[in-house]
């Protein structure tokens, strides 16, 4: 390698790092702003600017958001709603992931006539805007006796999440050689045996992808939460909206930002901690179809 090439490469490496770091900055600034604001006093926010450090670090925003901000006639903060979200999200994520796994298995290894059409129609269902289904879903849940229950909300999330989980699992299993399954079949293994003994053990990466994706989508959902849950069982997104969109009074941005951070914490933690599983799962073939 000549000197010129080496310095050329060095320059381009610097260029690459520069771009990456600049991008990182852009991605981080909003989070930084949110965090900073949540630790300021309202006076500080009004008189200072976005990136200024707090002149008076205070956790009043956080404590208020957690336990005393008004989300209606109740002024208990968002803590109760935090647990509601968990109660609703965990079952929905697990059920939709399991269904997706089975569906993906069938659509890749046990194809039948029309299974490809079924897959395509499932995919198209990803695009239905949720507003369209609110009223008919409400009527249906009412008839099923599930109106206004956590179970009803879980059912709704499963219905609209199963298309994505199926997509993930199907693409992943398609990459696994058919020969493996054929051999097992000829050995006398049945449908479930093959799934549990062969495919499931090697599905950890894609399980992680599905769990992470579904958790994020369901935890962050607002529309279904506000429509299909009521009062005490509302998820935290609804409480956050009530807190932030109040129509009178001085806007307490520090409380708003703290509440937004509390609402975002579980998904953030999931992405930071499990992010590498996410990448690993995507790398393991789910993406290449």
């Amino acid at each position, binding site marked *: 390698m000549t000197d010129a090439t080496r310095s050329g490469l060095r320059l381009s490496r610097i260029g*690459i790092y520069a771009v*990456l770091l600049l991008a*990182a900055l852009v991605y981080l*600034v*909003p989070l930084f702003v*949110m965090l900073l604001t949540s630790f300021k006093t309202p006076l500080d926010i009004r008189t200072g*600017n*976005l*990136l200024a450090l707090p002149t008076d670090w205070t956790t009043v925003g956080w404590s208020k958001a957690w336990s005393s901000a008004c989300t209606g006639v109740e002024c208990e903060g968002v803590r109760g709603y935090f647990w509601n979200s968990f109660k609703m999200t965990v079952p929905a994520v697990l059920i939709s992931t399991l269904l997706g796994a*089975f*569906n993906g298995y*069938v*659509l890749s290894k046990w194809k*039948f006539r029309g*299974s*490809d059409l*079924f897959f*395509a129609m*499932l995919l198209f*269902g*990803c*695009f*239905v*805007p949720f*507003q*369209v*289904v*609110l009223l*008919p*879903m409400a009527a249906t849940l009412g008839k099923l006796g599930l109106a206004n229950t956590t179970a009803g909300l879980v059912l709704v999330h499963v*219905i*609209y999440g199963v298309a994505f989980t*199926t997509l993930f699992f199907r*693409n992943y299993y398609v990459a696994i050689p058919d*020969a493996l399954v054929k051999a097992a079949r*000829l*050995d*006398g293994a049945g*449908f479930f045996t093959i799934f549990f003994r062969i495919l499931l053990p090697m599905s950890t990466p894609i399980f992680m992808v599905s769990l992470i994706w579904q958790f*994020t989508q369901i935890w*962050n959902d*607002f*529309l279904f939460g506000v429509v299909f849950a009521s009062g005490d069982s509302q998820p935290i*997104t609804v409480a*956050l*909206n009530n807190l*932030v969109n109040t129509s009178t009074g001085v806007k307490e*941005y520090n409380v708003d930002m703290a509440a937004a951070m509390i609402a*975002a914490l579980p*998904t*953030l933690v*999931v*992405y*930071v901690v499990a*992010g590498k599983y996410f990448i690993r799962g*995507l*790398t393991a073939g789910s*993406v*290449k*179809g």
Partner: protein
Amino acid sequence: MEHIQRHPARVARAPSRLLDGLQRWLPKLVVAPTFVLVGIGVYAFMLWTGVLSFTSSSFLPVYDFVGLDQYAKLMNNDRWLTASANLGIFGGLFILSCLVIGVLLAIFLDQKIRQEGAIRTIYLYPMALSMIVTGTVWKWILNPGLGLEKLVHDWGWTSFSFDWLVNSDMAIYTIVIAAVWQASGFVMALFLAGLRGVDPAIIRAARVDGASLPLIYRKIILPSLRPVFFSAIMVLSHIAIKSFDLVMAMTAGGPGYSTDLPAVFMYANTFTRGQMGLGSASAMLMLGAFLALLVPYLYSELREKRHD
């Protein structure tokens, strides 16, 4: 493998027919619940919406038949026309920008970067935030009086102006900015995973032939990532349609209705204005547009997969 094939046939002949029958039905049984759930939750409901679009339903459904009245009303509605145009602008820019930025960042990150894990997490985390949070934060950042413009003024550059958020013509682009910020990291992750799966032997061969790195990327690697593009576009389109939350949080459709999107229009008419018939017609047009664009794409991609 041949010797394995010859043995089981002798052993498992008798009970195999019953089991075979069961095996044939089992896969269908397993996907049946999903079939039912999605059949009702998506298709039956869409059909119902379609039916409603031909009625004069206002507050709640009413089943009279008024032909194409609602659709005609839509075509004369300036707000709907603005919203449709906005979807084209927003959707197109959003998907394109996310793809470009995602691919670029993925390529850069693939160059054996130190601290890759940390940088990746930084790019990825915005996806974890709900669109309401994203919209609220960006609304604040882009607010001329409180955010970026004020910050730059405070730093001394007083002629700087960035008032897109309050400008009827430019506001839609602020929505694009916030949405791209949120989703481009995810696209980066998809492509990074895809790049990692590319066979290094091919690259080495091309290198030996004297091709430069950018050329290799352009002519060899990116084309091989077609399935990744497919997944990315699927996810991005899904997000584009769902951007209801983002618009509501950032601009509520304003200034005026210059950042209105079909989903917001549909919501406002069906629920706030008690015009279910009109709202349903707008929903059907929205779906129709996506059908027209996505079905050919889906079809071509899935067909390719089968022939792979």
